[in-house]
């Protein structure tokens, strides 16, 4: 299935892009991150991230469906 992925901050720099559409068989955000970490060599471990699906915080074990927009969220630092 096709997913839309956005990258921010350190992950944007490490991925070398701010978004992409990806054809994947990853069933969950956790699976997806494992796939992406192999592709881009992200230095952040999954334990350090949160994940959002369709602009809401999500569980890592949520079942993804075609067209979902996924964002991995590095440690925040507003203000």
């Amino acid at each position, binding site marked *: 299935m096709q997913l839309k992925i*956005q990258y*921010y*901050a*350190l992950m*944007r*720099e490490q991925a070398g892009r701010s978004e992409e559409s990806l054809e994947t068989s990853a069933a969950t955000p956790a699976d997806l991150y494992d796939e992406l970490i192999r592709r881009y060599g992200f*230095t*952040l*471990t999954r334990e*350090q991230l949160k994940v*959002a699906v369709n*602009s*809401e*915080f999500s569980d890592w074990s949520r079942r993804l469906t075609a067209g979902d927009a996924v*964002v991995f*969220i*590095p*440690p*925040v*630092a*507003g*203000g």
Partner: protein
Amino acid sequence: MRFRFTQTAIDTTQARRELLDLGAGGYVSFEGWVRDHNEGQEVTRLEYEAFQELAVKEGERIVAEALRRFPVKHALCIHRVGALGLSDMAVWVGVSSAHRGEAFDACRFIIDEVKHRVPIWKKEHYRSGDSGWVNCERCAATPHHTHAHA
């Protein structure tokens, strides 16, 4: 909207006006300014970026929580994104209430929660030429500083 982003300087005069209330006797505001140092490094400028769609939702939830938890009149938070220089205002929070104690409590609650929960990131640029994403230094297995001259 009680939480919003701006690409340009935060207009605190206008923002404060939104909190005016004849029943309010106290008004507390917080401003976050870009400091010239952080954790031993000399900072020269900053870049802020946000996952705005989610950030606005989460920011609104924080302000709504503050309004539920504390008996205040109005509250508002504005966060700037983009490139900022020293002394620039990165974030503003304002709260008006009948009595001052609640305004202090609510204002502090909002900025504390925003800093912990809202998907905003800042990259510091240092006099040394290094730069780094704040709060990611402990996250990375490898050093977080990108050596501009490496």
